[in-house]
């Protein structure tokens, strides 16, 4: 028997009002993600990638339609419930890394656990463990400014992993990295996928998308294609 999908989207729409025009950023999206999916969302700029990522990441709510994350309807959540969902269900990896420059790697990685109410000793332990997983066991007390771009992104991945989220959501994770480093990062995602994580990444690079097992193409707010390897 198959487990129910982690994410279910039905007739999901997101409209923005720009003056007297209505922009249909997402138009009747029907999409499921199962546990262990390793998917890339692709499309040219303006296709609705970022909007879709914001909605999947509970940073935004849809105008209409259903978005179920682990059986909960996100469209009906209030701000605090969305924050809780982001904290428990989603691990973010950003194109611009978004580490806090004043904190060292350990403190950056443990940040989600503070908002989850985890005691300090456990936070420390889990953050160290997550950093070891991404191969940065020897850089724990370094600050982001003392690391290379690839290392910084690995810290960000460790931060995304730390609260054992249902999905890891990566927005152009290699957009600011050179080819060799991008390859390293994608290998890490590959490994994470193999050990059972659900990963969705957003990219416009075919080379990057090729690492994944499923490619979803968007155009003008609609799904153009959805193919699995």
């Amino acid at each position: 028997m198959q487990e129910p999908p982690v994410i279910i989207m039905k007739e999901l729409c997101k409209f923005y009002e720009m003056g007297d025009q209505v922009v249909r950023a997402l138009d009747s999206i029907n999409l499921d993600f199962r546990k262990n999916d390793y998917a890339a969302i692709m499309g040219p700029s303006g296709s609705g990638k970022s909007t879709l990522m914001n909605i999947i990441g509970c940073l935004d709510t849809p105008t209409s339609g259903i978005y179920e994350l682990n059986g909960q309807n996100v469209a009906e959540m209030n701000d605090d419930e969305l924050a809780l969902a982001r904290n428990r269900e989603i691990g973010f990896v950003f194109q611009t890394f978004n580490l806090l420059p004043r904190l060292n790697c350990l403190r950056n990685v443990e940040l989600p656990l503070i908002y989850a109410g985890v005691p300090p000793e456990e936070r420390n332990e889990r953050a160290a463990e997550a950093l070891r997983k991404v191969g940065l066991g020897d850089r724990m007390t370094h600050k982001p400014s003392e690391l290379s771009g690839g290392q910084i992104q690995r810290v960000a991945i460790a931060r995304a992993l730390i609260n054992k989220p249902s999905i890891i959501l990566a927005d152009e994770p290699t957009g600011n990295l050179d080819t060799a480093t991008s390859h390293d990062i994608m290998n890490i995602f590959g490994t994470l996928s193999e050990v059972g994580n659900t990963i969705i990444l957003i990219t416009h690079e075919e080379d990057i998308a090729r690492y994944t097992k499923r490619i979803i193409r968007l155009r003008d707010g609609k799904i153009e294609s959805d193919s699995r390897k």
Partner: protein
Amino acid sequence: MKVPFRQFRYESVESLKMALFQIKANKTRSFLTALGVIIGIVSITMMGTAINGIDLGFEKSLSMLGYDVIYVQKTSWSTMGQWWRYRNRPDLKTLYAEQINRIITDNPRSELLLAVPQISTYQASARYHDRILEQVFALGTNGDYPATASGTLATGRFFTPGESAGDEMVGVIGDDVASGLFPNEPAVGKSIQIRNHRIRIIGTYRKQGKFLGLFSFDNQIIMPVGAFQKIYGKEMFITIRVKIRYQQRVEEAKEELLGIMRKIRRLPPGKEVDFSINEQKAFKSQLDPIKNGIAIAGIFITGMSLFVGAIGIMNITFVSVKERTREIGLRKALGARRQTILLQFLIESVMICLIGGFVGLLTSIIITFAIEKVIPDFPVRFSPDLVFASLGVSVITGIISGLAPAISASRLEPADSLRYE
């Protein structure tokens, strides 16, 4: 219930750390921001110390009059300045003291203990060889006077009831008179000249200080009533000093004394009294409104500076929110709730204010200490209340000035703020 509280605790600790980080990272900005609070707190606490000081000086002055002595006089202390109301009253007589004493010794349940006459003038001048003191307070009384007055003797002794009954020309002088007339020699045993009479000094008082900064107890020459009247005649200002049995029962004592005085003056019931019974409380009721006026005006004016400081903090916190929009977005993406962000910025502004408050407090403690050292008579006094009050005021200032920026930070949309450049 337990997890949310723990979460709140961890978030607060995190916010506290971040606030310290921020303050350390922007030292100059934090200092300039805190300066507004520092100045505000210094001015408020200095005002507080001044009010405390006035209060203290006042209490000290009143205790010189004695809490257990009431005074029968021609005029009332509580309506000072309305001398015309008392102009036509008959003068008191020193004899009344004896009459009062006779009545109270006959009444074992009397609230009154002892009445002592006093006849005085502010206009005395005293001479010893070529040294002359003007505007000395000369006072005629009897041997019971020390029981009704503050002050202790530095040298010599007070005159005995025998000496006062015998109208002997002896006197006890205050410290200023002693040091003015006898700067390099002991006063006791010498004779000073008042008008055409000579008074032999038999004792000197220790320094006592001024009453409300106006009247000095150190500028007195105290002599027997008879001696005084030989020099100045009988037409001088007379006071009957009456010591009461219980400090707490001043009102009852005044009531009894009023009855006794009416009897002595033979005033029929219903007729208005032609004398006044005064106590130190009268000064308090006169001066309290003045003191409160100074306090209210002072706190209002100094409060303005704190208000300006608060606006400065609000401004800087708004700037800080703008600068850290991405950080706010990130924290929200990682699971920070609205109240978490709100708390973080509130803690930051409260922190700056508290640090400012501490620095301000320290500054005013140093200033107060310096004033006390340099000008010992200047009325300043620091109290623990002031410490709590000023730290409390700092926290409230921090909350008020941080609230609006913190709310705007907490309402930022996470998706937009993550993309903010």
